[in-house]
């Protein structure tokens, strides 16, 4: 997998969102309220960054009702997993490059 920098994912809160979702299996999703607790964001801030990630095709947002309560669930797409893996590989290359040049 080629290592690539990804400016969209590198934003700190979006990076946390992607990291939290990446731990789920391909069939799992995370409720908005739980994701908010994991990444430590406000409703508005999290909603705005999720919209950006959804536009990029990295996450899928599903809204439904449990009884009368609205529920929002977020899952990572295959494209999101690939993009995160490439960005992580890029970050590791930066560090490894420094280590190699120091040796």
């Amino acid at each position, binding site marked *: 997998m080629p290592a690539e920098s990804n400016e969209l994912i590198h934003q*700190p809160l979006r990076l946390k969102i992607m*990291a939290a979702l990446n731990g789920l299996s391909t069939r799992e999703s995370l409720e908005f309220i739980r994701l908010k607790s*994991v*990444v430590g964001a406000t409703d508005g801030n999290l909603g705005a960054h999720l919209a950006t990630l959804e536009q990029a095709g990295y996450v899928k947002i599903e809204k439904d009702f449990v009884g009368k309560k609205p529920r929002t669930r977020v899952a990572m797409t295959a494209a999101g997993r690939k993009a995160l893996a490439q960005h992580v590989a890029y970050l590791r290359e930066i560090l490894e490059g420094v280590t190699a040049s120091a040796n």
Partner: protein
Amino acid sequence: MPISTQEAADALQDIARTQHRASILRGYERGAPHLILWGLIWVLGYGTSDLAPALANPAWLVLDLLGMTGSFLIGRAAAAGRSSASAGYGARFAGLGFTALAFVAATYYILQPHDSAQFGAFPALLIALIYTVIGIWRGSRWAIAGIVVGVCTVAGYAFFREHFMLWMAVVGGGTLILTGLWLRRA
């Protein structure tokens, strides 16, 4: 814009921290219904042991079977979304239940408890131990639940021996239910 070495290191640390936190919170979410279920079973089981001792054995048998069935269904539903966890789930759960029963039976056989408070205290202490050990690895809330259950069990045994079963129904069962709700809100 190129990313500096420090930024790369910070970003990788952020990813690791977030994944760890997400994993802990997922564990709380999955564990919460089990604690609430077993809290209710303790309330009913220990309550029956205090209020109607003659019915204690059949009551515990039925309640334990209900608890095991409930835990199995809750666990299976949670594992359904994860192919790695759902494969062989039934066999693993049966293994867990059999191991716990065998351990308690073997301990009773060797240590020979001679009053009902001792019979009642041991499983509670075992649960306290399990939760505390889980907490050392998988999140402090589990450890707090284990320590509270353990301390309450010993305190009830030492100071409220005459109504130890009632104490365990209210304090032990109540602790499990409240901890379950606390985990669910994490």
